[in-house]
C-alpha cells in the first residue's frame, strides 16, 4: 500500500448571469416619512449576502448612512420581478437595478430638499451622514429626514425610484455562430494538493491555493466567506456527493441524508485565497460577484491532481474510492506522473 501525492490545477472563465430574455432584475426604492429608505426586491438571499450588498449599493448611491436603508426581499408576490438568484448574477444584475432605482429616488430627494432650502437641486450634495447641503456651504443644509417629511406632508411628492437592468441582446455571427452571451466574466485559478491511497482508493485533500478575479469585492469579508464555503462545496462535488452510488446498481443507492455524503469538519483542507480586483466596466461599483465560480475550479483541479498522483483519468463525478480502485485495476496499478514544484 502506498499513498501517492498529487498536484492539479485548473483555470476557469465564468460568465456572470445569462442572456435569456435579457436576464432582467428590477428594484424599487422609496423613502419612508422618517427619512429611511426601503429597497424592494424579489432577489433571494439564502446567505450569500445579496441583501447586504444591495443595502451597501443603495446607501452609496442615495448618499445616506447604511443604517438608514432596509432591504425587503424574497417575496415575489410583493417585490418587483427578478429572474432569481442563480448563475452568479445577483450582485451584477440586482446591484445595477438598485443603482438605477436609487439614482431616481435621490433625484426626487434633492428636489424636495431644494424646494425647502430655496436653492437649485443641482447645487446640492449629500454628506452620507443623513444631511443634504449646498455644495461648498455646509451650513445651508437640511436633514434627509426633514426633506422626506416635507416631500410627504407638504409638497405631496413620493421620494421613490424604479430600476431595471437588462443586458443587451447579443447577435449571433451568421458565419461563425459566435456570440457573447453575457457582458462580464469572472476568472479563477486553483491548485489542489492531495494524496491518494492505492489500496483503499481514499483521497485526502491537503491544501487549496487559489486566486479569484471577481471585479471589485464590494464586501471583502463576505467574498471571502463565499470563496471558503464555495470551494468546500466544489470539493464535495468532486469527491463525495451523489444521490445514487452504484454499488452495484442505483437500487442500492442512498435513500436519505444518512447516505448522502459530504466532507465534514474533519475533512477540510487549508485554503489560501488571493482575491484580484479588476472592476467590471458595467458592474455595480465594478462588482461581478463570486457566485458559482467559488466551486467550479475545484472539480477539474481535483481530477487533475488525482491523475498527477496515480496516472488515472476519472471523468465522472464524484470521484469515489470505488472508481479509483477500478481504474487502478484496469491500469495495472498506480503510475505517478511528473510533479512540478
Amino acid at each position: 500500500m502506498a499513498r501517492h501525492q498529487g498536484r492539479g490545477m485548473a483555470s476557469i472563465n465564468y460568465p456572470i448571469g445569462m442572456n435569456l430574455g435579457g436576464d432582467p432584475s428590477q428594484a424599487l426604492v422609496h423613502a419612508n416619512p422618517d427619512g429611511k429608505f426601503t429597497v424592494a426586491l424579489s432577489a433571494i438571499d439564502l446567505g450569500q449576502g445579496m441583501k447586504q450588498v444591495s443595502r451597501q449599493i443603495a446607501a452609496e448611491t442615495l448618499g445616506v448612512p447604511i443604517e438608514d436603508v432596509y432591504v425587503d426581499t424574497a417575496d415575489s408576490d410583493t417585490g418587483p420581478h427578478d429572474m432569481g438568484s442563480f448563475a452568479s448574477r445577483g450582485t451584477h444584475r440586482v446591484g445595477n437595478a438598485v443603482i438605477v432605482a436609487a439614482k431616481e429616488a435621490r433625484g426626487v430627494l434633492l428636489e424636495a430638499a431644494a424646494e425647502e432650502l430655496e436653492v437649485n437641486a443641482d447645487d446640492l450634495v449629500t454628506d452620507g451622514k443623513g444631511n443634504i447641503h449646498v455644495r461648498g456651504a455646509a451650513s445651508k443644509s437640511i436633514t434627509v429626514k426633514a426633506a422626506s417629511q416635507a416631500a410627504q406632508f407638504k409638497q405631496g411628492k413620493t421620494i421613490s425610484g424604479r430600476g431595471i437592468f437588462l443586458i443587451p441582446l447579443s447577435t449571433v455571427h451568421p458565419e461563425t455562430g459566435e456570440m457573447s452571451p453575457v457582458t462580464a466574466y469572472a476568472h479563477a485559478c486553483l491548485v489542489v494538493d492531495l494524496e491518494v491511497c492505492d489500496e483503499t482508493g481514499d483521497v485526502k485533500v491537503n491544501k487549496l491555493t487559489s486566486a479569484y478575479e471577481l471585479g471589485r469585492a464590494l464586501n471583502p469579508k463576505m467574498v471571502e466567506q463565499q470563496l471558503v464555503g464555495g470551494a468546500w462545496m466544489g470539493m464535495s462535488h468532486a469527491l463525495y456527493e451523489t444521490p445514487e452510488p452504484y454499488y452495484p446498481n442505483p437500487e442500492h443507492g442512498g435513500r436519505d441524508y444518512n447516505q448522502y455524503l459530504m466532507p465534514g469538519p474533519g475533512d477540510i483542507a487549508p485554503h489560501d485565497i488571493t482575491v484580484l480586483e479588476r472592476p467590471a466596466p458595467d458592474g455595480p461599483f465594478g462588482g461581478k460577484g463570486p457566485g458559482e465560480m467559488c466551486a467550479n475550479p475545484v472539480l477539474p483541479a481535483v481530477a487533475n491532481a488525482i491523475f498527477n498522483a496515480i496516472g488515472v483519468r476519472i471523468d465522472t463525478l464524484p470521484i469515489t474510492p470505488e472508481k479509483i480502485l477500478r481504474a487502478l485495476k484496469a491500469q495495472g496499478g498506480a503510475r505517478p506522473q511528473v510533479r512540478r514544484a
Partner: protein
Amino acid sequence: MARMPVQFRLNGSDRAVFVEPAETLLGTIRRGLGDFAPKFGCGQGTCGVCTVLVDGEPRLGCLTLSVTCEGRSIETASGLADGPTLHPLQAAFMEHFAAQCGFCTPGMLMAAKALLDRNPNPTRVEVVEAIAGNVCRCTGYEPIINAILAAAQQRGARRA
C-alpha cells in the same frame, strides 16, 4: 394513547406540558413551547440542526423523547443571549462570519457551548470532534471552527 404530563426547565424557566408518549423533545420545544431556535432537518439523527443541551450534554432533539426529560434542564440557542448582550459564542460567530443561511447555526452553537462548558480551552481537533455531528451546507466549516476557538480564547482572557 393518553397524553402524559412532563415538567422540565427550558432556558431557566420551569415549563409543564402534556406530550404524546412518542413525541420528540424537538417537537415539544418547537410546537408545544414555541421556541423555534432548534431546527428540524433530517429527523433521523444525521444533521445536528436540532441539537439542544439536556443537563449540559448535547442531545439530538429529534431522537430524544420528551417523556425522558422529566425534571431535566434543557438549553436551546434562544437562551444564549443575556438580554441585548450576545453570548461570547454568538459574538464570535458574528465576528468570524460563521453563518450564511444560518440553518445549522443554532445546533452548532449548542454543540460548541457543550464543548466549552466542559473544556474551556479546546484544541482544533477537539472543536472538530465536537461539531462532527453537525452538518453545514454553506460555510465549509472553517469559519465555524475559527469562531469557536476564538470564543474559547476570549473567555480564557476574561478569566485571566
